[in-house]
């Protein structure tokens, strides 16, 4: 069974009297363990697609199945449960709680699903270790570098052991070197069995993935398997 299956989904916004179709019938299938990049110019609808896939929003039309359950008809709180347990978000601007320590930022998703304190501590530490930041757990975001902040965000995404990691321009606010480190971290996480979707407009970033979906004007323009030659080093063989 595929992890993600969308069946002709549309997203339409009402802008006054005008209807704007951000997505015009997208059908994709993503399996467990896949590493996918979604590419497209700005305004192509790639962020809208990411929001739908990430259960932050529901489609105007069409069906969306996540892990076999029909997400397209779900209520806000059911979506919140899926976001909490099944999806880990990584954002371009990190989206950390500015006043909270790295530890608390990573712990937060566990609080919302009622995990006990001891269990929370164990899982949070494990996630921070996975991104090599266990020694920075008492630091606040403003005491961390951009790369470290993004790693905290990745630890937060990992902490509930989600079925899917969804990264929206994860290197967009980082310099090239730090961006490279983050992409290598994603490659490692993929090797460890995580399913990853990265939204980007840079081909350099996209080629870390195994497969690239090109979006333009709300439609899938091209579905490309990244060739062996182009494929970027995946963490171990730099």
């Amino acid at each position, binding site marked *: 069974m595929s992890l993600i299956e969308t069946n002709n989904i549309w997203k339409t916004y009402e802008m006054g009297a005008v209807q704007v179709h951000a997505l015009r019938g997208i059908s994709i299938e993503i399996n467990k363990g896949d590493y996918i990049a979604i590419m497209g110019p700005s305004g192509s609808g790639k962020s809208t697609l990411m929001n739908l896939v990430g259960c*932050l*929003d529901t489609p105007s039309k069409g069906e969306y199945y996540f892990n076999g359950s029909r997400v397209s008809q779900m209520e*806000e*709180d059911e979506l919140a449960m899926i*976001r*909490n347990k099944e999806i880990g978000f990584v954002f371009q601007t990190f*989206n950390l709680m500015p*006043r909270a320590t790295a530890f608390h930022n990573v712990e*937060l998703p566990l609080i919302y699903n009622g995990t006990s304190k001891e269990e929370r501590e164990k899982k949070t530490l494990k996630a921070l270790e996975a991104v090599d930041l266990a020694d920075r757990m008492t630091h606040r975001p403003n005491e961390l570098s951009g790369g470290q902040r993004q790693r905290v965000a990745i630890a*937060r995404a990992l902490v509930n052991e989600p079925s899917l990691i969804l990264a929206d321009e994860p290197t967009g606010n980082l310099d090239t070197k730090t961006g490279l480190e983050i992409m290598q971290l994603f490659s490692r996480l993929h090797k460890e069995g995580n399913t990853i979707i990265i939204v980007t407009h840079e081909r350099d970033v996209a080629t870390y993935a195994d497969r690239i979906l090109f979006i333009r004007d709300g439609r899938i323009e091209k579905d490309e398997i990244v060739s062996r030659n182009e494929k970027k080093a995946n963490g171990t063989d730099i």
Partner: protein
Amino acid sequence: MIFWEIFKMAANALRINRMRTILTLLGVIIGVSSVITIISALDGLEQSIKSELEFLGPSTFIATKMGIIMSDEDFFEALKRKPLKYEYVKAIEEGCDKCVKVAASSNAFNTEIKYRNNKLRNVLVRGSEYNIIEIIDFELGQGRFFTHEEDLTRRRVAFIGTTIQDELFPGVDPIGKSLKINNIKYKVIGIAKKKGSSFGNDADRVIFIPYHTFVKQFGHPRGRLAIFVKANSVEDVPDAMDQVRVILRARRHVPYDKKDDFGMVTADAVMAVLNDITRFLRLGLVGISSIALIVGGIIIMNIMMVSVTERTREIGIRKSIGARQKDILLQFLYESLIQSLGGGLIGIAIGVILGKVLISLMNFNMTPSVFAIVVGLTISTGVGLFFGIYPAMKAAKMQPVKALSFE
């Protein structure tokens, strides 16, 4: 478990915005403390008046020229009445079979009391018949009260309250000593038990002298004459009052179609009037001070609205990692509740203290009002919930995508 975690988040957010929290608290503190101050002061006032009236006792009433005056009109009408006469006492004793004790009493305030070099001014001197001690709630402490005989023979004897004892006879046993009332010598024969002060009025700052002695020194009491009557029992009070009324109307030749030209005072009647007054005070003052409370609530709501808008992105982040609507709702509701309840508790403390200060300034007796505390807590919780729910709902209902893209 999760409630507690969310509560901690709310408390944390308030701690971070310390200045804002303090200002919000201030709004509630002012509102709650003014309501509590007023309620406790009014409670104290009422209790004091009640204890003041208790000396009358439930089976006692007083017939006077004026009675209880409720309006200017009544007051001017009552001024024209003829004074009560001493002979009514005998008439009531003979004609009222529901009455057990009847005593005439008058008083003078314009007095100067002396014992050697000690001097007191404006002491209440009551000229009463010998049996007044059995009618009103004054108990014998030491010595004795004066007798019927002493009254009729106009002896200069005095029965004093404990304040007179303390201030005029420090370190001296007053019994057998002579004090001077407006330069006329009286022998002290007894001391009352301490009653304590109430309503700014020291009940022990009093001297009782025989009625006829009083008349001899101060002249006829005229409008000042009061006739104290004790009925058989509490149940007999209405009958006794009716009998006294009939006797007085006959004696004063009041035509059957005219109103009484005298007044009857019972503790209950005075209390009823006072209740009316304090009820108005309560409604008016509490009403005015609750405006402060509403303003406090509006401050909370205003601050919470700003806070929700300012933290839109935070709300988006929380939602993206799985916070449900009720989690967000609860967090913001906790924030306004902590502020309103916290402000409420501080306000209650300040209010109780202020109430006590007010009361001690006015020399009342007072016990802290549980009612005021319950009211304060209920109101502040109510304010927090009422004014906090809308901002919290606004936060909870935000769409995650929109909230996340908020700049």
